[in-house]
């Protein structure tokens, strides 16, 4: 209690006064202009200023799907699966797609950032929906527009989410030629009955075909998405999916644990933890199985739901985990620029109006409001703890006050002891819990000198990440 109250002054003194490199956009201007010199910090190293520079990443939302999956609550536009030939370009472009891409291009063009420096984009991520339903020439249009407005680094990572059954070798080749160099393949499961039960528009045979296309086209950097805890899924099925995933040799695997969201078909029919969904215990077992099998196959579990072979982490997603800024374009997409998170309208009509307003200068492209350092701190906590790197204590303490670090350590002490949280020194060797305990107890010691990182243990800590992160939230906002 004592500790918690000592934290608030630290925050209030920093609030709204981060150092600025002359950000011109209206939103942050008022707050940032009169920052006293004393509050200025080195923008290159400080977590509180990390978000202030111009982004070098862009998320582009391409919302089209053949149909909505039963678990999905994303902003998508379902096209229907009437087309008989899904693998190749439709004869005539679907006007819905063309119109949307034109709107998207207008949004990008209307985004006048006003940053002094204009670093090239280093990562672009086409997410959806099913971006692979968009004809390559329209993808090309988007990339050109991005390049014209922001510049595109020649070795930028350009990822695209693709679903089996929505592309063939020809289309894939075209996309690769446009610069797409990373594919995230939405496989989800290797059992037809499970795919069907969750409303996927493809079957297992299309999965194998898609993998063939990837190999044929020489896509080296590709990721496979799997979902665990699907209805009717058994441990045997899950192990089979993981085994087949490993055999297909992607360099990256994302394992998502099914979240039953309100308003989705699953949300209406199923209750988490109850049949036909696996129990909480089974579900935890699935998570652990994924962790051990994939790590056993040479993947690094570098984030709660991400695994990669050496050198194949998703650079775009790392931007998220590091709390760095990124642009976002398209229906319902969320950007993070100048310390502000901003979500675009999720409905097409409203999004259309938004783009028109943006062009007229009547709408803001990155959100309004002040930057609350408490929000920055909690963002960093929740994002850092999702990664295997964990929270860098020194850096966090410099940004938000050493008292916060001490309090977090105090709150986490029992969980270091129980093994849910791992303490690491500067060589990333584990600091044992007894030593950590005595460090916490000793007010003379600067914990950060001995413990450089706190991270959630894989898989036990990751499995309880919400509980553990919310404990740290309690320290920051008592």
């Amino acid at each position, binding site marked *: 209690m004592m500790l918690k109250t000592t934290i608030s002054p630290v925050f209030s003194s920093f609030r709204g006064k981060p150092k600025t490199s002359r950000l011109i956009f209206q939103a942050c201007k008022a707050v940032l202009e009169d920052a006293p010199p004393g509050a200025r910090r080195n923008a290159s190293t400080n977590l509180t200023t990390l978000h202030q520079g111009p982004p070098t990443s862009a*998320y582009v*939302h391409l919302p089209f799907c053949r149909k909505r999956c039963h678990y999905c609550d*994303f902003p998508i536009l379902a096209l229907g699966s009437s087309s008989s030939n899904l693998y190749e370009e439709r004869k005539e472009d679907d006007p819905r797609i063309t119109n949307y891409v034109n709107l998207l291009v207008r949004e990008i063009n209307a985004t006048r950032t006003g940053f002094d420096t204009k670093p090239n984009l280093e990562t672009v*991520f086409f*997410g959806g929906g099913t971006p692979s339903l968009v004809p390559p020439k329209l993808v090309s249009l988007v990339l050109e527009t991005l390049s014209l407005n922001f510049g595109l680094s020649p070795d930028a990572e350009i990822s695209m989410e693709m679903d089996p059954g929505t592309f063939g070798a020809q289309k894939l080749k075209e996309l690769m030629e446009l610069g797409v160099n990373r594919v995230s393949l939405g496989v989800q499961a290797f059992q037809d009955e499970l795919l069907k039960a969750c409303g996927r528009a493809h079957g297992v045979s299309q999965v194998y075909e898609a993998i063939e296309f990837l190999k044929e086209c020489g896509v080296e950097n590709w990721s496979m998405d799997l979902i665990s805890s699907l209805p009717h899924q058994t441990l045997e099925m899950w192990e089979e999916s993981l085994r087949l995933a490993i055999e297909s040799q992607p360099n990256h695997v*994302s*394992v*998502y*644990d099914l*979240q039953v969201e309100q308003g989705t078909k699953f949300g209406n029919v199923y209750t988490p933890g109850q049949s036909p969904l696996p129990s*909480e*215990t089974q*579900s*935890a077992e699935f*998570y652990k199985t994924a962790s051990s099998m994939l790590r056993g196959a040479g993947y690094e579990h570098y984030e*709660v*739901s991400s695994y990669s072979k050496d050198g194949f982490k998703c650079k775009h*997603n790392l*931007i*998220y985990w590091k709390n760095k800024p*990124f642009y*976002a374009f398209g229906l319902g*997409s*969320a950007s*993070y620029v100048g310390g502000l*998170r901003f*979500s675009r309208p999720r409905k097409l009509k409203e999004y259309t109006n938004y783009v028109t307003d943006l062009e007229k200068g009547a709408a803001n492209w990155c959100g309004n409001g002040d930057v609350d350092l408490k929000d920055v701190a*909690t*963002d960093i906590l*929740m*994002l850092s703890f999702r990664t295997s790197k964990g929270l860098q204590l020194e850096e966090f303490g410099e940004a938000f006050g050493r008292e916060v670090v001490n309090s977090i350590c105090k709150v986490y002490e*029992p*969980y270091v002891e*129980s093994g*849910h949280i791992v303490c690491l020194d500067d060589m990333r060797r584990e600091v044992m819990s007894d030593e950590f305990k005595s460090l916490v107890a000793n007010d003379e010691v600067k914990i950060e000198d001995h413990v450089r990182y706190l991270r959630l243990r894989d898989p036990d800590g*990751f*499995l*309880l*990440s*919400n*509980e*553990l*992160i*919310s*404990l740290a*939230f*309690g320290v920051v*906002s*008592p």
Partner: protein
Amino acid sequence: MAMASAMDLSPPTFFLSGTSSSSSSLRRLSSISVSSFRRHSNRRLHVLCQATAGTQPQSGLSDSGSKLAARSGQDRLLKVPISKIRNFSIIAHIDHGKSTLADKLLQVTGTVQNRDMKEQFLDNMDLERERGITIKLQAARMRYVYEDTPYCLNLIDTPGHVDFSYEVSRSLAACEGALLVVDASQGVEAQTLANVYLALENNLEIIPVVNKIDLPGAEPEQVIREIEEVIGLDCSKAILCSAKEGIGITEILDAIVQRIPPPRDTAEKPLRALIFDSYYDPYRGVIVYFRVIDGKVKKGDKIFFMASGKDYFADEIGVLSPNQIQVDELYAGEVGYISASIRSVADARVGDTITTYSRKAESSLPGYEEATPMVFCGLFPVDADQFPDLRDALEKLQLNDAALKFEPETSSAMGFGFRCGFLGLLHMEIVQERLEREYNLNLITTAPSVVYRVNTVNGDTTMCSNPSLLPQPGQRKSVEEPYVKIELLTPKDYIGALMELAQDRRGEFKEMKYIAENRASLIYELPLAEMVGDFFDQLKSRTKGYASMEYSVIGYRESDLIKLDILINAELVEPLSTIVHRDKAYSVGRALTQKLKELIPRQMFKVPIQACIGSKVIASEALSAIRKDVLAKCYGGDISRKKKLLKKQAAGKKRMKAIGRVDVPQEAFMAVLKLEREVL
């Protein structure tokens, strides 16, 4: 014209009233529940009515009989000789029609106009009306002309609950007679019986009245036989009435005059007045209701309270009719009130004797008792910031309720609060409800407990009402607990069910007798601790509401009592500790651990929940660890929803109390405390 003359004599008889509210005029929660707000608004209304009364045409449509009654009602301040005074109360079980009868008496005697009665029905204390009981009492002076001679009748109301049996005994002591009202379809109930015995002890003339004879299920003959058999009263002159229909009211009034003896004429002796009620008025201080037994009291007299030893000047004296009407003097046999800027009801307790300071009586009137709290519980504010408010509220209530005791208590789980003592369970509930309703406090109540007498090995005897303060087993020689004698009256079909209940509650069977063909009386002795839980609720539910009960404390007895502790993750949770009989420890322990397991959210680790006697675990449950709580889903960098969830989760933790490493929600404490009340 009758009305005009009435106007000259006194203010209009009626005003909207919280002070003299009741169903109507008689029932008032004087020392227990009149808020200052109500009194305040009440006084304003009083003024308003006085101002308009003169100009308002009275409804002149009533027949000549009621006009006559009304006139005599208006004359009720006129003095009559002591031999023409009749002081009486009404003894009745809940719902047997006491209030309706009282209202009818007031109406027929013209004390309260027909027109005004309805209004009074509307203006009633919520608590009292909801519970359908009279908690505290008040008085009404009526004038009744019998055979052309005016009489002054004082009705002194009695509360109808055992928690207040002392108050009942004092109001009975202020009377020479009583109406025993029994519902013609229900028969005699245990509580009625207890009060009749009290009345007989006070040598009161009892007039049996069988009420509700108009109801289809009425069996007046049967009920009369029951009264004769059970109480041994001569019922040859029992009056059959229906207060609701106005049947038999005149007969009752006549019987009061004929059969109840007048007060003794001791007006020349030094003053002795018996306090039968008092309440705190924030503007005038304590208002004391009394019956003059000997001597007389005048406005301006310096009076002396013999038990509290306090003296005050009688700023104002008056009669209750049913509202307060000032007079100059009251003499032996009369009933009235005194306002003397008395600071707290503790200075003028019920049962105390008022005498004149300059001419003190030799001895006080018999029967005065200090209030002894029998039931205790801890009261804690849900929101710790409300602690000062709770203290203020308790202090205010105490001004008006001398029986309420409290002292600060600190609990590791619930923070700062108070340990409070009450006369009984109803008293406890009323105080809790008033704190929550009138003072907007949100409270957690611990299980009620009784006061144990602990004999220690070094020969000391200490009283202990708080389980956490019970001396260690090594230091205790023996523990005694208060016992009560209960009498249960029940239709014979439920005898088995009640015997089972009493035996479950460690009851010792004493006696059973049939009071009528179909009804029996059961007498048990059992520990008070067994009664403070849901005994009464059980009694009602097991007999479909037909049984009634009455209890009296009969003293302390040694019992095999132990302290039952609850450990969560090996940490003692003090507020959940209870003192129970060894034979019950296992079942209570099991129930508590099971409930806690249900209510405590799962933690990141396995949590044992144990019930222990000393170091011996007698019941144990385990809360399994959370297996998975992770959001493993990608939102295209949109973390806002994830963050919202985490914030909510963090906020949820703040509402919990940490017992060691375990977060226990406040609701779990409350539910367990409630359960303790049920299982103990």
